[in-house]
């Protein structure tokens, strides 16, 4: 499906955490509308982005994903009044912290997408996937120095 050619053949694995009430619906609508985007993410449905524990992000990286994408309702549209507003502060601090520790900004993404925004969903999905793809595969052969995302992976 993908038309990208850089890092030829590399299909990133992305963990996507979507709010049930908006982005998940947006993804659904994108499907109903036959909008195309690469299928390189796996969705975990959350009741609200307020449910998003920062530990989920680290856990996903430990399990070996190349990128994480969290998406919920637009500010003001939360089904639970303000879950996403609290989440926004948490994500702000978390993203700052992880990037401060060395995480490549292209690996962690947040968006607000409503259940009516099928096209925005499509565009954002392409964006996220492209951003993660552009960083290339996570493996020791690919880079000289060990990167955070490489070493967050649990090796057994």
């Amino acid at each position, binding site marked *: 499906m993908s038309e990208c050619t850089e890092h030829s053949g590399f299909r990133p694995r992305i963990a996507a955490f979507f709010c049930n009430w908006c982005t998940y619906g947006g993804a659904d609508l994108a499907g109903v509308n036959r909008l195309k985007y690469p299928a390189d993410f796996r969705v975990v449905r959350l009741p609200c982005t307020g449910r998003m524990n920062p530990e989920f992000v680290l856990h996903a990286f430990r399990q070996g994903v190349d990128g994480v994408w969290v998406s919920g309702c637009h500010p003001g549209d939360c089904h639970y009044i303000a879950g996403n507003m609290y989440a926004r502060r948490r994500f*702000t601090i978390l993203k700052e912290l992880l990037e401060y520790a060395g995480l490549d900004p292209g690996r962690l993404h947040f968006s607000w997408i409503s259940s009516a925004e099928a096209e925005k969903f499509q565009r954002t999905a392409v964006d996220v996937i492209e951003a993660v793809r552009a960083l290339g595969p996570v493996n020791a052969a690919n880079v000289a120095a060990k990167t955070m995302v490489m070493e967050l992976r649990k090796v057994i």
Partner: protein
Amino acid sequence: MKARAEKIREIAKRLLQEGKVDVVIGYARGASPMREQPFFARTPEEAGQLTWSSFCVGNTAKFLVQAAGAGERAGVVAQGCASRNVVGLIVEKQVARDKVVVIGVPCLGMVDSRKVEARIARSEGRRVESVAEEGEELVVRGRGFEKRLKRKELLRDNCFTCQHRNPVLADEMAAEPTAATGGGDIDTVAAPWEKLPAADRWASFRETFTDCIRCYACRDACPLCYCKTCFVDDAKPQWLGKTQDVTDVASFHLMRAFHCAGRCTDCGACESACPQGIKVRRLTSKIEKDIRSLYSYEAGMGLDAIPPMTTFRADDSDDFIKQGGAQ
């Protein structure tokens, strides 16, 4: 220091005598050089063992949850940072205001024993056996040597950049207020890796935490950490591996720091507790810097304050939210 110690003893003795508290939590003489130990004085006589020096590097607020659990009214000897943690615990409803009597101590900063050791060259087999405080000087003695060092040069990193040396909440005061800050500019030294190119940050992170033995002393010394079951101990699901793998160690430290967001007073107890001398504040200081600049908040400054992670504003920054590319 001596005057402070005497005043602390006097206040503690009175509070215990008058039955205003069941226990006074402060410091007593430690067993090792350059160490004072937390001490629970339960009688007016025991109050005589309380002390104050440049080596009170723990955080007495840590013990308040324990005292509250035992139904005790506690007096707590607290300098600026610890008093802010007392406020934090009251705000977080772990401790009732009327169960705590704060004995405030304007703080002159605490000394980092590792810095002293470095200065007397432990590498050459020289061991500090005793330290006496004479004004602004430390007289360090060991087998075959005596050295006078300037206290100011040996303060813990967090004490250099302390912004609130005077207690923010005090029912009693053990001295007149002192200069408000340690003199250092917190925002220039917090978050040291921000100055590094992104590609070098992880290497620095690794190096910083490579000696971690996962004893969790940083967590257990921290007055913010009172959860009944810590995320590292969760078994269903088990979030974290228990090994020394980089990922398990890194995840622990990242999450621990995150849990301190908007709550940390930069008391430095974590760093002082670490048996491996790990600079764990490199993470917490970054978060607190962000909290200050984004939400104009400093932890524990007022009983009416709303902690920043438990609230929001409609206009909070969301520059990091993806807009979904060109149409």
